[in-house]
């Protein structure tokens, strides 16, 4: 097992270098200049001397080769550099936003798992019943509905309902406070995004749980267990569900990794200052260093999550051994 993990970690190195080269090249292929965006975006006069000073300050007047070497050497040493937009270390920019993205990702995953596993299992156990039809309808609606739209609707619903019931429209606070500073206020901020994201996430997971369960329930060993007279609850929990979880865990892993940096529009709808919003800002502002660091962070999260999922396979299915 340890050797397998080591191999996987070593294989991550060329993946990371490839991603680094790709993002470095792609960012520079996009036409534009961060200094012009910064100094001229407001519509006033842009002093060419100020643009030149900005280029020199950001190191954009150096050759692309030198810029790439700097990036790779810095990344290898754990130094992501300075954000070209804010002048702050990239690690500080990401650090100040990762907490909220992680919190939303974890809460959404909890919501998704809490809904998807029981309902997906029940749906498989009662195949073609009214319950199954209901669960499948809810799941398809969840997949078909964009999270950001659901987010906008949920805020409007809260506003309308509060206005109707109390006479004064209410919505959750819009200035984020960390969980450890004010748990109640924090939860009131993150609960709506977690629910709206969790719903779509649960829909995908629910369908996967159902189909995996249906497949497992038709296996010979389940029939054997039933023939032996084992309790149905025991068959489902111990033998069917655990084996059906393999593809579900993979899906949960991929979705979780996506949630860290992929909630671009949803974070804007709820005014959450997370990694997804930072990603968009970095690309829009043509902040090369920050975009590069965020891409590398995302790649690393995906590699790590996939590794964790693979390790979980062995725990879920003892037949799987990593050599």
């Amino acid at each position: 097992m340890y050797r397998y993990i080591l191999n996987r970690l070593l294989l991550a190195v060329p993946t990371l270098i490839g991603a680094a080269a790709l993002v470095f090249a792609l960012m520079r292929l996009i036409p534009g200049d961060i200094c012009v965006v910064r100094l001229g975006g407001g519509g006033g006069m842009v002093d060419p001397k100020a643009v030149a000073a900005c280029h020199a300050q950001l190191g954009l007047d150096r050759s692309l080769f030198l810029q790439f070497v700097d990036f790779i050497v810095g990344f290898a040493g754990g130094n992501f550099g300075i954000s070209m937009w804010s002048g702050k270390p990239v690690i500080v920019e990401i650090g100040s936003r990762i907490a909220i993205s992680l919190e939303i990702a974890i809460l959404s995953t909890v919501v998704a798992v809490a809904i998807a596993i029981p309902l997906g299992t029940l749906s498989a156990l009662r195949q073609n019943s009214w319950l199954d039809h209901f669960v499948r309808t809810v799941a398809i609606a969840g997949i078909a509905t964009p999270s950001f739209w659901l987010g906008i609707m949920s805020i409007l619903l809260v506003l309308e309902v509060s206005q109707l019931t109390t006479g004064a429209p209410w919505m959750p606070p819009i200035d984020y406070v960390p969980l450890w500073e004010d748990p109640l206020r924090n939860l009131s901020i993150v609960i709506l995004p977690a629910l709206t994201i969790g719903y779509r996430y649960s829909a995908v997971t629910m369908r996967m749980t159902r189909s995996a369960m249906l497949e497992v329930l038709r296996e010979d060993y389940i029939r054997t267990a039933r023939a032996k007279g084992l309790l149905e609850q025991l068959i489902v929990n111990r033998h069917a569900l655990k084996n059906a979880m393999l593809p579900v865990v993979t899906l949960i892993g991929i979705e979780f990794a996506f949630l860290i940096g992929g909630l671009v529009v949803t974070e804007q709808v709820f005014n959450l200052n997370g990694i997804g919003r930072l990603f968009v800002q970095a690309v829009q502002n043509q902040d090369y260093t920050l975009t590069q660091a965020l891409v590398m962070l995302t790649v690393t999260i995906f590699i790590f999550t996939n590794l964790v999922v693979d390790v979980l396979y062995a725990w879920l299915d003892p037949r799987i051994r990593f050599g």
Partner: protein
Amino acid sequence: MNAPIKWLATGLSMALTAALVATPALGETPKRGGILTYMIPADAPPSLDGHKENTFATLHATAPFYSTLIAVNPENPSSTTDFVCDLCTEMPKPTDDGKTYTFKIRKDVKFHDGTPLTAADVAKNWQYIINPPEGVSSARESYMVMVDKVENPDPETVIFKLKFATSAFIPALADPFAYIYKKDQLEKDPRWFEKNIMGSGPFKFVSYETGQSMKGERNPDYYHKGQPYLDGFVAIFAAKQSVRVDAIRADRAATEFRGMPPSARDQLVKELGDKVTVQTSDWNCVNLITPNQKRKPFDDVRVRRALALAIDKWKGAPALSKIATVHTVGGLVFPGSSMAPTKEEMEKMVGYWPDIEKSRAEARKLLKEAGAEGLKFELMNRNVDQPYKFIGTWAIDEWSKIGLQVTQKVLPTGPFYDALRNGTFDVTVEFNCQNVVNPVLDVAKVLPKSVYPENYGGYEDPKLIELYNAMLHETDPAQQRIKMRALEVYALDTQVNTIMTPWWNRILVQRSYLKGWKISPSHYLNLNLANVWLDK
């Protein structure tokens, strides 16, 4: 009443009306206390340094912490000529044939760390803004071309010596970005203010969460006695309009200070009734439609004239104002300024003729003469809804009425500026947006690239520069206005270097309990919150 006087009177009456509308608190005694929460319609600004940045996001977050030498009058910000002292004791009368301005600096001003602010601080800051040392950048150096040097003969005096007398100096000096930093800190590390805040303004810095919020608390030692009225403020960054509208609706924020589209205003007024007030003003921002004269057939003035003649501004402006943040038909100069053209003056220029059928017939004739009938081209636009895309779509529809086939290409800000600077477009929607209304400098946008780097028309024209310089150096207001008209007619009618679209309309919806704040023609002005109070 002759035309200029009539328009001056109209401008003044507009300003007065705006002031009256914007003064719900007239006669009321300001109440002390409370925290004002407002929204900043942007993501995090690049830095907190006013000297280096051009974005309103920096100003909206940091203006309450700083003082400036002079400012637009916060009690009359809709006026384009009313400037008052902030750090000085009295607005000076120029001497030396208008080339020397001597400012006396208040003695009772302290920085937030308790050290006194002197004329040496003011002089050093302006020296850095006008003539930044090696390695230091100043976004406002170009605006101060008229200044020769800044002197500080004693601890209470700052003297500005100009290269030439000009009416552009005082408005340029009232630049809201021209914060006065502590001299010692500025000299020690000119980049310190990019990430740190230490001023002498009405509020002291409390905290800044990048891209999230800025917080400030009342400065008890503020030199304008009795102010500020608020205990503090919280400014929340929210780039998405729906968030800001919902926040005002649910009273999570009292307002924003940039501007909203008519639909947002209508929604909030409908839902909140008298719990909100609305302030509106012409805005010192305008979209221009600029043909690239380095590309055929836009090097032919007949084609450019045809483009201008096809657009019905008089009918388009009121229609567009219902859905977009535009309102007033104008020329090169901000419509609220005494230097702006009258309607009669405008109607003589192409693109402003009152008879649109005659105008379009002339456009078709010109296109035929130029061999450009049924011309197909691409209109480049910026990926910003209000009002860019509305303007672009409107112009394309207008051009279709003379047989032109135009498609719209919308680009994000970075690639958009890249295309502008490299001249890789046929015709573009661009913009001119300034802070203090300073017509003499604001119209420099039409000057060739060799003089004004942000001109994208792709032309060089010595006569245009000559006309501009004659106007710039003219000190008699009446003569200057005449020379401004000559420049305008040459740029918009004779050469049609650019086509003006209706000037922007600034609409602000605020919770009714927010008092004391008055709208100005720019979202960069009147933001230090010293005279704002909450009627709660």
